[in-house]
């Protein structure tokens, strides 16, 4: 339990090459841990939006919505996994979908680890010190991207260059998926409208 939930993620974020290797080949990654990390990330982002200090919190409290935060994390996450799986399948990646999910979710760990303490610390900052807040947020983000990079590289057994290309393509594919989704949605809406109009026509004639 402690090994899965605490020790392994903490080991992974500081030793990503070993960590992701163990995750893939020694079966050390667990889906329940991955989802816990995601849940914690959602929680920490929500907490940050709500409780970050006045000097750094530019959110309009009237429009804070934790449902939005949930969607805002889960939707890109699933989109990334799906897009990454689609592209790596074509590009000879060795990773299974589960491994992609695991690698992506474990990469989010630094966000959780940094957001919570810096949110608390931001409440005790004056204007000149808020630079540290933004520095920490940047570190969290860069760390996350770095882990995602190593994770993708290890899971698919790619070279560094191929990983970069794949990640860029994944982002493009994410856009394509969203576009297709919108297209399908609008098409269904029009089909619905079509049948509804037929129905209305019949009603008025009868």
């Amino acid at each position, binding site marked *: 339990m402690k090994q899965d939930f605490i020790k392994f993620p903490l080991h992974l974020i500081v030793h990503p090459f070993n960590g992701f290797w163990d995750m893939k080949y020694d079966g050390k990654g667990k889906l329940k841990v991955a989802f816990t990390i995601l849940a914690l990330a959602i929680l920490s982002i929500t907490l940050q939006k709500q409780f970050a200090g*006045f*000097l750094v919190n530019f959110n*309009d409290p009237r429009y804070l919505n934790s449902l939005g935060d949930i969607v805002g994390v889960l939707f890109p996450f699933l989109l990334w996994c799906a897009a990454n799986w689609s592209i790596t399948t074509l590009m000879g990646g060795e990773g299974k979908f589960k491994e992609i999910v695991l690698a992506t979710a474990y990469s989010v760990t630094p966000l959780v680890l940094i957001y919570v303490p810096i949110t608390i610390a931001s409440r*005790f900052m*004056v*204007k*000149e010190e808020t630079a540290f807040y933004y520095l920490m947020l940047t570190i969290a983000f860069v760390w996350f991207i770095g882990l995602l990079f190593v994770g993708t590289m290890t899971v698919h057994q790619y070279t560094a260059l191929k990983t970069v290309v794949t990640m860029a393509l994944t982002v493009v594919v994410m856009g394509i998926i969203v576009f297709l989704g919108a297209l399908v949605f609008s098409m269904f809406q029009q089909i619905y409208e079509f049948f509804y109009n037929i129905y209305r026509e019949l009603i008025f004639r009868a």
Partner: protein
Amino acid sequence: MAAKQWLLGVAAASLLFLSAAPSPVSAASSSTPYESYNYNYWEEGAPSPAAYVPARTVSGTDLGVGSFLEPSDLYTAVDGLIYVADTGNNRIVVMTDEWKVDRVIDSFENEGKKDSFNMPSGVYVDELGSLFVADTNNGRVVVLHKDGTLKLIVDNPQSDILAAGFKFVPLKVAVDKAQRVYVVANGVYEGVMQFDSEGSFIGYVGTNKVQRDYTEIFWRIFSTKAQKAKMVLFIPTEFSNIDMDHKGFVYATNIDPNSKEPIKRLNPSGEDVLKRYGYFAVVGDIRFRMSVGPSKFVDIKVMGDGIYSALDSNQGKIFTYDDEGNLLYVYGSKGNQVGTFKTPVAIDRSGQNHLVLDRGKGNIAVFEPTLFGQKVNEASQLHYNGRNTEAVPIWEEVLRLNANYDIAYIGIGRSLLMEKQNGEAMDYFELGMDRKNYSVAYKRHRRELMKEHFSSFMTTVVILAAVLAAFLLARAWRKRKPFVRAAAPQTKGGDRAL
């Protein structure tokens, strides 16, 4: 039957009563023909009590001098006399603040001959009572003494920087303490024209910057010479009006729909020194429909103590700002009722009241401050003069009338900060969304707290450190023991084996 009738009567009476009861309230709230609002921190137009309400209108016929014909300027002198440039009738109408005609100036003596105005569109009166008239179609500025005799004529400016054949068409005029005359002239893009007290041209002050339009530049790359010649030139916009504050700074407005700085405060060397410390730019409406467009300022009036009001001809609104560029209140609209405008062209004050000259209607609308408007003015004045503590009870009253008034929270916060009540100041700055001052207050508050609790904090730290040290020592000691114990049986076992 009787009972039924009686019941019906009661029902009817109660209905009457119900409908009668709320009506005074709605009548009171709809007493202004416009909706009052102010922008909050989130740049939304939040409803606000009206700061000024229309009191009456004054037309030329009311004054008994015949209707105004396309009047275009209004000025209140230091002695309270109100001057109207009645452009279409070629005259200046002077009235008292009780709306009695003092005199009508339509001619003056020039070198022994009778001379008159031709479409005068700007008036200004200096502290000595001299009247400055921008005599537009005659291409001159006429200066008259208080008694109506001619003092000076400013015309035909001569300078190397003026193009040959330059035609002087003055529209608006203002004068500073050193008797320098500032003129906004038609077709002059270089800035406000400045003349000395003798009437000779000195130069320009405060040029408007040219706005770059990148799409235009992009198209220009692909166009032929003939096409380029047909395109609009990149020229700075003209100023639309000017006013002078007591320090001799020129407040100027310009009509540039894309400008972020339609209002400027020019120092003597012509630089813009307007303070813009508010949440948003000093541009009038920050949210507007695309079909309506941004505010178009045609006049500005310095109300004193750093407060200035600008008149937006596009939507017929008056925007009043304080010294730091905070929007104090907005009122007015376009329409046909009393208190709404057709073509507003000039704004001035008479005591506490605001006067707005409407060219389309040919009348002057008089606006009286409400309690809210009075209190806001009063508190802003006190704040401008550095009397923050005295402003606090007034700000509190403002907040009682409008709890959304951010400037009041900031004002109270500042006073508390001066009195070193940093914790309370923080609360007020947070309500007013003033992060900069909040940070200052918090820095002091944090230092105070640390000073206050330093001894108890250090005691706790020392005790905790001691406990931790003891714990670590104990653990180390306990760890060592089993090692010794474990070593002993091993040797024993070894003995046995042997």
